[in-house]
Structure formats: structure tokens, C-alpha cells
């Protein structure tokens, strides 16, 4: 299946792009998607402890399952306001 990965702020800078498309063998979770990214770009790995995740623009969990066509987002600690 194919998912869109969204990366923000420093994660985006580290990856060199805010939006990636990845093909993954299902069944997959958010964590599966993340592991694939870190395998490609080890520098992202440090964020695993502190980031948040979202699926289809809704906050989610690493354990949440992912379906074909989903948008999976990885969010560094926030600093709005």
C-alpha cells in the first residue's frame, strides 16, 4: 500500500522534504512507517521519544494501523503561541 508521509519543522529540514510518498507492505502501523523512514534517514531517529504522530490530520499513536492512501504525520515537540 501507499502512504503519504508529512514531516514538519526540524524533521522536515532533516529529511529535506515535508511530504514523501512511500510504499509499504501491509498490514502496517504508524510505527512501521516510522521505522522505514529511520532506516532511510537515521538522523530522524532521535525524535522517536519526543515526537507526536497524526493519521489523516488527527492525532494518533505509534500503534495505530495505517491503510492505503493514509497521510501519516510526524510532529516534533510543538512551540506555537
Amino acid at each position, binding site marked *: 500500500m501507499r502512504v503519504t508521509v508529512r514531516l514538519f519543522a*526540524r524533521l522536515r529540514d532533516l529529511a529535506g522534504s515535508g511530504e514523501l510518498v512511500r510504499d509499504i507492505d501491509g498490514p502496517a502501523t504508524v510505527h512501521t512507517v516510522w521505522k522505514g523512514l529511520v532506516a532511510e534517514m537515521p538522523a530522524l531517529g532521535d525524535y522517536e521519544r*519526543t515526537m507526536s504522530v497524526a493519521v489523516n490530520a*488527527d492525532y494518533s499513536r505509534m500503534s495505530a494501523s495505517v491503510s492505503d492512501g493514509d497521510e501519516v504525520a510526524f510532529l516534533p515537540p*510543538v512551540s506555537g503561541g
Partner: protein
Amino acid sequence: MGEPFVAVTSVPLDLQALTREVAGSCVGDGAVASFIGLVRDHNQGRRVSYLDYEAYEPLAVRTLGRIVDEVRSNWPDTRVGVHHRTGRIEIGDASVIIVAASPHRANAFAACRYTIERVKQIAPIWKHEHFEGGDVWLEGATADPDDESARQAAYRIACA
């Protein structure tokens, strides 16, 4: 995005318009508390040139809407609106505006304070600080809207 009183926008924020929207709809409200966050010229010893705000826009709008709902559940007689700006913001310009209207000033103040605390906790928005000699992404809280202890901390700060 359809959420009332909520916006994530790259255009300058208009406190007067938001005040009219939030407070104008009920003549029973005697108290309006508001908050403006302004870009400061310094941060942690650095001379800031400007800030660039990035948002995950659809989730940010949804999250601000969630905060508006939390306020209504905490203070049923009180309404709040919150607009957050994105993109490049110059020193002295507003990054966020919040307006709370209530029959009671204690609730208006509490709702306004609660809202800014929650924005900082859970809104998927990031500051990219450009200072003399470099730039840095600021990182604060790990956003988790379901973290009850964070929510209670915001409530305690607002109501204590």
C-alpha cells in the same frame, strides 16, 4: 474549516474583528478578556530578527477547535475564540490572539489563560527563529491532547 471562532492564517491577526465575533453575539456578557502573543526581539540571549511559524494546518485548526470545546466544557457560560498566524512574523507583530467572553470576569480571564496554555501544549505549530548569526527550530512540549495531566496543569494555571 468550519470551526467557529478558530483560524490558522498567514494574514495579520485582527483582535477587533475576533472580539466582535466572540463578544458581539451575546449582550449578557459583561466581561471580555483577551490575550495577544507578540514576537519579541530577543529569546534566550539571542537577538531575534523575525520568526517563521509553520503549522500542520488542518490538524492545527482541528486542535484549536478542540481547545474551544474544552473551554466550553470547563466554563459553560464562556465562549472563546483563537486565531494563530503562520509564516514570517516581524518583531512586535502578533502570532496569536485569544478572546474570551463571559458574564463573569473570573471565567473570562480563566478561559483566556487556559487557551494560551493549551495552544502551547498541543497546537501543531512550530517557531523557526531567525536571529543574528543563524536560525533554530524551537521545540517545547510533546503534543498529546489526551494527556489529562497536561490539561489539568493548564486548568490549574488558569484557575488557581
